């Protein structure tokens, strides 16, 4: 009975109830879409690392993200290949490219070259063509999302990259990087495009055999290659993300927006719930006079906060899902890891309770004698 009474008392003041719900929706949607974009950008930052399929990366020392890595000798690959427990070790070439478009403009790109025939770390999702396109001597891929930027190239079109010829042999889907778009190619073509000698590569990617402990293998490889840095893929991914978060202002920018959206939401919830209680002062006084204890009144207002939270979360996540759906194949990075909505919803419930504390304090302070005035 108290539950339904609480709900009806809440929605009897429709404007304030909707105001409170709007506060929750603001928190869920605004913070949620900020987080989605942030996580989307984070996934872009370390996309090549996360998509590599490797357990361990070998790179130059003293660099704090893989994009800033220099070159290492190809001989490193040969030195580790014979180590027991390694399934494969493949060199890759990563570098910057300047693409000349049909209209004469230039666009910056990131070139990722992988060795034939395994094409480790290569693209996995295709809009047109397949990974076989990289087997072509001068073949490069472009991504569907970058077609407009690149003046709508088609398979077979010729590009000029760093003043060298390349041919579009496949169009990938959702293979997005953080520093310019990614052009996949084979390692020979990549060396040609970024002017790297055949005895050098950017990194060596290692896959360990099942049953081999990655950390033990990493330590062993580090002993074998003391002049290189041998790093586990998750650590390199995290290191790269952290580098960009700390050095580009993205972290503080998103953090500030998130904090502001949260504060605005909590303030809206506080004010509207407080107004609701104020407008119902007589009702709460009557309930107290009839025999409600302070804890009973607190329970009613707490329930109202929960109703607001649940409805707001539902509406907020519906809007957020629509946002994620419609931006899925757009240039806007948006991605939420599976655990984020749960954390976001629980956090919002806590914020809703926090926002309702002023209303709760007001409600329990209402004297039953007020019913007689």
């Amino acid at each position, binding site marked *: *009975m108290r539950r339904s009474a609480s709900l*009806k008392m809440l929605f*009897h003041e429709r404007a304030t109830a909707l105001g409170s719900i709007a506060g929750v929706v603001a928190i869920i949607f605004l913070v949620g879409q900020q987080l989605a974009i942030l996580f989307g950008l984070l996934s872009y930052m370390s996309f090549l690392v996360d998509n590599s399929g490797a357990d361990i990366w070998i790179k130059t020392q003293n660099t704090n993200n893989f994009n800033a890595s220099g070159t290492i000798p190809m001989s490193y690959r040969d030195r580790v290949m014979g180590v027991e427990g390694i399934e494969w070790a493949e060199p890759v070439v990563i570098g910057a490219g300047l693409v000349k478009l049909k209209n004469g403009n230039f666009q910056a790109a990131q070139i990722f070259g992988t060795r034939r025939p395994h094409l480790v770390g290569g693209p996995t999702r295709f809009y047109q063509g397949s990974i076989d396109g990289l087997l072509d001597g001068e073949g490069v891929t472009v991504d569907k999302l970058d077609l407009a930027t690149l003046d709508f190239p088609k398979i077979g079109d010729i590009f000029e990259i760093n003043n060298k010829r390349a041919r579009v042999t496949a169009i990938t889907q959702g293979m997005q990087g953080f520093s310019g778009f990614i052009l996949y190619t084979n390692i020979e073509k990549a060396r040609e495009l970024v002017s790297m000698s055949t005895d050098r590569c950017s990194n060596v990617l290692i896959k360990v055999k099942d049953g081999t402990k990655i950390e033990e293998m990493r330590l062993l490889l580090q002993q074998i290659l003391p002049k290189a840095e041998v790093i586990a893929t998750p650590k390199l991914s995290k290191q790269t993300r952290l580098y960009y978060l700390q050095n580009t202002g993205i972290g503080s920018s998103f953090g500030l927006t998130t904090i502001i959206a949260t504060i605005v939401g909590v303030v809206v919830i506080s004010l509207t719930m407080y107004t609701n209680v104020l407008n119902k002062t007589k*009702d709460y006084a*009557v309930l107290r006079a*009839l025999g409600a*204890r302070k*804890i009973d009144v607190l329970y009613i207002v707490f329930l109202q906060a929960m109703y607001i939270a649940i409805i707001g979360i539902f509406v907020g996540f519906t809007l957020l899902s629509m946002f994620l759906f419609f931006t899925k194949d757009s240039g806007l990075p948006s991605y939420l890891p599976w655990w984020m909505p749960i954390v976001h919803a629980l956090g919002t419930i806590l914020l809703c309770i926090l926002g309702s504390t002023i209303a709760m304090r007001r409600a329990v302070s209402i004297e*039953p*004698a007020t019913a007689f005035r």
Partner: protein
Amino acid sequence: MNNKPVIQLKGVARDFFDGKQKRRVLEKTDIEIYPKELTILSGPSGSGKTTLLTIMALILSPSEGSVIIKGEDVTDLPENKLATLRLKNYGFVFQNAALISALTVMENILIASTVQGGSVSKLLHQRAEDILKRLGMFEYANIKSEKLSGGQKQRVAIGRSLINDPAIILCDEPTASLDVESSTIVLETLKGLSEEGRSVVLVTHDPRVFPYGDRLVQIEDGKISSDTGSQIND
């Protein structure tokens, strides 16, 4: 006397602090309220009659003196226990009914029994229906209380006061702003409840109410200026 008092106020006084000084709004008062009796507390505005009623209601604690309910001294009981005592022993009829406008007639009655928690049993629901039938309000059970007339609201308020089968019903100006016909229905209902064995205490300054009382207590300047005494229990 053939009945024990349900409410005894012994040397009860009440002070209020108005921000600058302490002001005594109710002088030391002794009064006993008996079952089967409709007691009217009357007096001009600001005389202290509502203060006396709220002390009887265990809502306002006295600055001095003691409150005894059914033989038990409850003066120093904590707030939560007083709330439970009110729930079990008291029914309230407020000025202008003071129904919860968001709720239906039936819900207004049921909430008075479940305000400390618990579900609505079939028995409780049946009891609420019986009360509404008795008050001629059954057909309005599912109507929002805000849609009722003043007289109808007050009848529902009486229904709400009865749901826990209380020994004491306290009424604060129950006929204020009611027309003559509605006032008569309300007063006859309250009179009937006192005749069933309940103690009904009614605060009013409407002289039309006086004929319904078994006892008239006049209050002026925070003191009982006259008391006809119990007509039934003497």
